[in-house]
């Protein structure tokens, strides 16, 4: 108990740091230097520590928490097994520093590659190779290769969501299912659109895993480790839409939606209200941006196709032209346009993979973030319900006082104690999830800004490259045009 209180005290202290970080990132950078030696150095690693503490708390509370807060079927909740993991990250400073170093370099590389079709017809599926290269100690080997199929990824996400979402952790969403896309692949169409679909999916799966392991708590999760390392994985049938688990998920989703409408939360904390509004706005803006970028990808692909068509037509015109020098120039023009077509195609790919897919990921991530806020509302609701129930039990006991039924009175008193406990638990859970969300959101915002910065830079560089190539091609053509005599 004392341990728990101690760690929550530290959490509060760190939480204050985080609050100030929210208000002014520049100020926060300065305060990082002021950090007391008991917390660790670079600001970046505060959340890491805090996350570790969070899991520690879970393991202490676990048996009671399951029935109240878990979200539907949780096939692999192993709160007990978390605690041995936590032991690895004890509070001794040396280990913290080592861990900090690991976090600094984030020494884990995951790639998803070599899509392979297995089977035929409608039962066919794609197998992807997942390669993990790391020097982190939690992994048993430096380099691991496993084969996974799409439903395995969905299964992993499902487990992580049911374990962590109700605690306020932002679990990265898995790539979307696509009936149309997969059917084409299954049916065996080797055309460009199915190749593109598989590549799109492979890339999405890779990004999904990278995001998942970036989250310190998820990185240590046994399901994640099992996913990355073990050669055999039990088939995740519960991810199928029409499975028992699938239907249960749908029912829960509906129930959540109803709850959202009925729970009128008294928001005492302005931060949450602000953030929720912010994320609502961001949702709208990113979707709009995504639509514009998708349009750009489409039009650039069209441009590429039309340039190719023009190139062919110019070549034919050159062939038909009876003036020799002009004929040659037209053929050269056709060649230049062919090269430019290739450029446009490459640029369209950059448009897509750099920006469009990233935006799509973030739109889904923001949905997950908003979901986490909803979880907090749910926790609040449960706490309120417990308080109401306690009140009722107290009233019932008061009535029984004058009814001289000793056994019933005792029972009522027992129930009061039970519900007092539940109210306390509800309050603790609510505060815990609020703390977690603040941390998670802070981390998320940092990651988002970093991601976008990096992507914008990469994209601008891809545009520069295109322009450089264009200059090269046209400068080579200019003498040809001048040579027409």
């Amino acid at each position, binding site marked *: 108990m004392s341990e728990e209180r101690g760690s929550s005290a530290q959490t509060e202290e760190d939480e204050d740091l985080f609050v100030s970080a929210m208000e002014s990132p520049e100020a926060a950078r300065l305060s990082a230097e002021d950090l007391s030696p008991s917390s660790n150095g670079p600001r970046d690693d505060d959340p890491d520590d805090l996350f570790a503490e969070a899991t520690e708390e879970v393991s202490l509370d676990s048996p009671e928490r399951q029935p109240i807060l878990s979200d539907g079927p949780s096939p692999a909740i192993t709160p007990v097994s978390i605690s041995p993991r936590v032991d690895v990250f004890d509070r001794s400073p040396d280990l913290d520093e080592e861990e900090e170093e690991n976090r600094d370099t984030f020494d884990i590389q995951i790639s998803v590659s070599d899509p392979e079709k297995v089977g035929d017809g409608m039962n066919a599926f794609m197998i992807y190779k997942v390669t993990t290269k790391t020097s982190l100690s939690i992994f048993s080997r430096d380099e691991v290769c496993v084969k996974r199929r799409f439903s395995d990824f969905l299964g992993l996400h499902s487990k992580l969501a049911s374990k962590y979402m109700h605690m306020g952790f932002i679990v990265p969403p898995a790539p979307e299912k696509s009936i149309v896309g997969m059917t084409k692949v299954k049916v065996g169409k080797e055309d460009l659109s199915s190749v593109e679909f598989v590549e799109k999916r492979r890339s999405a799966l890779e990004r999904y895993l990278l995001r998942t392991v970036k989250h310190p708590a998820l990185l240590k999760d046994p399901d994640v480790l099992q996913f990355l390392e073990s050669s055999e994985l039990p088939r995740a049938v519960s991810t199928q839409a029409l499975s028992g688990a699938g239907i249960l998920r749908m029912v829960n989703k509906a129930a959540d939606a109803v709850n959202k409408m009925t729970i009128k939360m008294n928001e005492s904390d302005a931060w949450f209200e602000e953030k929720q509004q912010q994320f609502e706005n961001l949702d709208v803006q990113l979707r709009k941006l995504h639509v514009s970028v998708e349009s*750009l990808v489409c039009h650039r692909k069209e441009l590429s196709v*039309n340039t190719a068509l023009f190139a062919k037509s110019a070549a034919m015109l050159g062939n038909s032209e009876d003036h020799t020098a002009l004929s040659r120039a037209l053929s050269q023009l056709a060649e230049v346009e062919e090269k430019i077509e290739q450029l446009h195609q490459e640029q369209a790919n950059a448009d897509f993979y750099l920006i469009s897919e990233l935006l799509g990921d973030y739109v889904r991530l923001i949905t997950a973030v908003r979901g986490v806020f909803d979880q907090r509302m749910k926790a609040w609701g449960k706490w309120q319900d417990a308080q109401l129930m306690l009140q009722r039990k107290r009233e019932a006991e008061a009535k029984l006082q004058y009814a001289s039924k000793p056994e019933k009175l005792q029972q009522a008193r027992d129930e009061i104690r039970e519900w007092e406990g539940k109210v306390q638990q509800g309050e603790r859970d609510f505060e815990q999830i609020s703390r977690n969300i603040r941390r998670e959101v802070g981390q998320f915002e940092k990651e988002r800004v970093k991601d976008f910065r990096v992507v914008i830079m990469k994209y601008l560089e891809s545009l520069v490259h295109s322009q450089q190539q264009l200059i090269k091609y046209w400068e080579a053509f200019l003498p040809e045009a001048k040579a027409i005599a």
Partner: protein
Amino acid sequence: MTSISEDSDKEKVRSVSVDLNNDASLIIDIPDALCERDKVKFTIHVKTTISSFQKPAFSVPRQHEDFIWLHDTIVETEEYAGLIIPPAPPKPDFEGPREKMHKLGEGESSMTKEEYAKMKQELEAEYLAVFKKTVQVHEVFLQRLSSHPIFRKDRNFQIFLEYDQDLSVRRKNAKEMFGGFFKNMVKSADEVLISGVKEVDEFFEQEKTFLLDYSSKIKDATAKAEKMTRSHKNVADDYNHISGALNHTAADNNTAFKKHLEKSAEVFEKLRKLEDRVASDQELKLTELLRYYTRDIQAAKDLLYRRARALADYENSNKALDKARLKGKDIAQAEENQKKSLQKFDKLSESGKKELTSFKARRVVAFRKNLIEMTELEIKHAKNSMSLLQGTIEILNSN
């Protein structure tokens, strides 16, 4: 009402013609044009030393329909059968900008001030582009006539230039237009005639083969170039929307990143302008060039057709003469006809040869000029884009 004045960019605008104004005795240009609802009024400016004109310099307003009238009278003039008749300028097409203006009017209430101003700017740019194109093509038509030794003396051409009142009384009425329509129909059927006619002259044989093939190829190239240009414009449009969306997102973000987003929005806005310029320059230099020569090739084919007709007439007159000799009736008349047909055919062949030769020279020079100018512009725009992008990358990196 919108009007443009030609600025010093006249040289660049007049790309298809290639120095058609180098004879100082008759210089024509279109310095100004007014757009009134559906009608475009071109201001024709003439400078001349030719005595048959009343004044050495003067201006006159003309509508598109006046140009068509002039073209049709020239087409219908027998004497010009052996000449390539400069193709009529196409009708000014303001459909695109007009649609946009409509959309702008409708969406005004739902747009922010900046969005509205931006769209208005785009609209004006589009109007200007269409203007440039249509002025160029009308100007070239007149310049082709003024620089041709025979056409420049045409009576109707002079009337067109000088008549200081509305020409509409002299324009085609509906009946004549109908006649013209039929003529065109018959003409295309006679393409078969051109290919079918037995050609003795090596030169014309080659020209025929070349023109028939080239005509379909250049038509195709024009269509493909148009599609390509349109795609460029679509990409520019998308850059515009992305810029707007980035600005919206910037409005909500925390300070450090906000600047980042705003800079990115700015870069996309500038890229849009550049991409738009690339598209319109490509259209002016490449697509318009191809469009013009598609029409010019058709005019050359028309010449071949008239000559083929004349040949067919000559052959018919020969047959008629033989028949007349057989019958012993109207021999003199038949001989007269035969002589006339042969004369006509010879005249057409002689001037046709000259025209087709100079046509090729003209075509090669025009292609050369436009391809060079287009390439130079592409390089210029790409260099501008690159320095813009690199500048932005530097600024963002230093943040």
